[in-house]
């Protein structure tokens, strides 16, 4: 008897402990029916999150049928460890799966890590009411973990973009300024060339000859006049026909005219004039006004003939 009483007492104590233990496992859970037509998914989009980024915690409830079939009760924010909520949102949508409409309600939380290490999202109880039966049901999420890692380098794209935009702007301005300057210069040059083109080179030389040698001047220095005539002719040949310039001797100039197949008449004329000029310039020979006058006339005729096309020094080559 005594043995029987002892076994009953032990059994009662174990029974009471078991009942207490079972009751203590979900102390906050209301005493509600466990049947549910709703599917619950709770997850984080990134399990590994840098300290300077946010993780997204998603609670997705979906059920078959209309959206207003169930009424989801408002619930508190999840209890977090080493994390804090930096933003949240919710959305409803209806999709069709195999011809059956499915309603989806989604809650998202942006979670910002606090320190490097592990972060946790504690289980969350969501209550909902079946609008057809008016019965309330609970749903529960699991405990989820997130690993917080070192912060990653911020790229400051904004700053880079701002600098790039500034640089491009300045460069564009510079290009524009250079282009405008070049255009201005080109226009000025074009204008000059147009002005020059208006006055043919032969006329320019005729005018220069007239200015340099005044045959009516009683103090005309014949020797100096020959020097001017020689220089004008050589400069003209250089500018007009790209013949050697003033650094070439008369014979080098004749050589050029021969090599470039100028007309014999033209070469002979130039040779006569320059030989005569060389003789006057370098031999100390006295020269009278008639010689100068004759030379000026010959030079003028070269300019005139070239101007009016009567003389084609290059012949038919």
């Amino acid at each position, binding site marked *: 008897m005594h043995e029987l009483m002892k076994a009953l007492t032990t059994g009662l104590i174990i029974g009471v402990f078991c009942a207490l233990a079972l009751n203590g496992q979900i102390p906050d859970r209301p005493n509600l029916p466990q049947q549910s037509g709703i599917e619950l998914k709770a997850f984080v989009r990134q399990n590994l999150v840098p300290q300077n980024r946010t993780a997204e915690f998603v609670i997705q409830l979906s059920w078959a049928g209309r959206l207003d079939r169930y009424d989801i009760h408002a619930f508190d924010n999840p209890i977090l460890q080493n994390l804090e909520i930096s933003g949240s949102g919710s959305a409803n949508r209806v999709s069709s799966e195999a011809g059956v409409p499915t309603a989806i309600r989604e809650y998202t939380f942006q979670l910002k890590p606090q320190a490097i290490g592990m972060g946790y999202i504690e289980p969350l109880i969501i209550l909902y009411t079946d609008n057809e039966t008016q019965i309330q049901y609970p749903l529960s999420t699991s405990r989820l973990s997130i690993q917080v890692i070192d912060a990653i380098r911020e790229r400051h794209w904004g700053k880079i973009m701002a600098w790039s935009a500034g640089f491009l702007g300045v460069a564009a301005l510079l290009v524009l300024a250079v282009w405008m300057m070049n255009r201005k210069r080109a226009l000025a040059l074009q204008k000059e060339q147009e002005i020059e083109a208006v006055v043919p080179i032969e006329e320019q030389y005729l005018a220069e000859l007239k200015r340099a040698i005044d045959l009516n001047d009683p103090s005309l220095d014949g020797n100096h006049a020959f*020097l001017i005539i020689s220089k004008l002719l050589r400069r003209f040949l250089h500018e007009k026909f790209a013949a050697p310039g*003033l*650094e*070439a*001797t*008369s*014979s080098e100039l004749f050589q050029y005219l021969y090599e470039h197949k100028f007309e014999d008449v033209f070469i002979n004329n130039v040779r006569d004039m320059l030989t005569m000029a*060389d*003789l006057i*310039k*370098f*031999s*100390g*020979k*006295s020269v009278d006004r008639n010689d100068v006058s004759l030379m000026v006339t010959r030079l003028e005729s070269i300019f005139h003939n070239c101007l009016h096309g009567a003389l084609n020094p290059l012949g038919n080559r």
Partner: protein
Amino acid sequence: MTVDIHAINAKIEKESEFIDKITTEVGKVIVGQKYMIERLLIGLLSDGHILLEGVPGLAKTMAVKTLSATIKTQFQRIQFTPDLLPADIVGTVIYEQKSGSFSVKKGPIFSNLILSDEINRSPAKVQSALLEAMQERQVTIGEQTFKLPDPFLVLATQNPIEQEGTYPLPEAQVDRFMLKLSIGYPNREEELEIMRRMTRLQTPVAQAVVSPEDILRAKKAVHEVYIDPKIENYIVDIVFATRKPKEYGLDDLSELIAYGASPRASINLSMAARAHAFLRRRGFVTPEDVRSIGLDVLRHRVIVTYEAEAEEITAEEVVRKIINKIEVP
């Protein structure tokens, strides 16, 4: 100032008649080398000595020998060697046992035309003895001073390819040569003619066609060739451009020239241009005369810098650039 150019021209025409005779006679022996023969005559007529640079076998010696033969003058060839002494050139005083007195033995320098072969093979004292005689035109042996004959022309040769065991002429002594000629190889036709002519049984010989007196008269006439102040200024411009190239728009040459040409260059260029005009039988100098002879007068007088040497730019190139840049009058 008015010059009687007709009179000068007439005189030059007359005095330069022998030029054709000389060139014809020399041409019988020497094939081509017109440039060298003309420069030898310029040196002879303007009292300027000549430094010839060229590889062996280019008829340098033969040209001088032939020229000498055409003028009826004395010719001496002195081969410069490391053991040569000044007395071997100028002469010495020797004791005559028979008479018991000292007598002068004149050296080979007492000739009209002297070929100093490979002048850079002898030490400086021998070179100096020759160059002093060239300058002074007299030598002192013992206590007696002797004038050298007239005409007197020294032609020194240098071999540009063998520099080992040589004594390069100092710049100051090189400056005493009026012209430095760079002798090149003959062309193909000339080479053929040389080969044919020199392999005959009887090699051609030049005849004497001119007397030394003709040369002396011609030298006098060369001095009378008219040189206009414009040409003189042109010469000075060229020489100054070797010293201050920047002032003549030759900025790129200022880093390449260490020392420009001396006033002796201006004098020699003027004289050589006159002689060149004389050879053309003209009584006045033109820029062509200056340009033709300018390179030969200046190439040994312009000293280039290390930078130029490093860039393999020669004095000749520098001078050529200057001559091509300076405006002719």
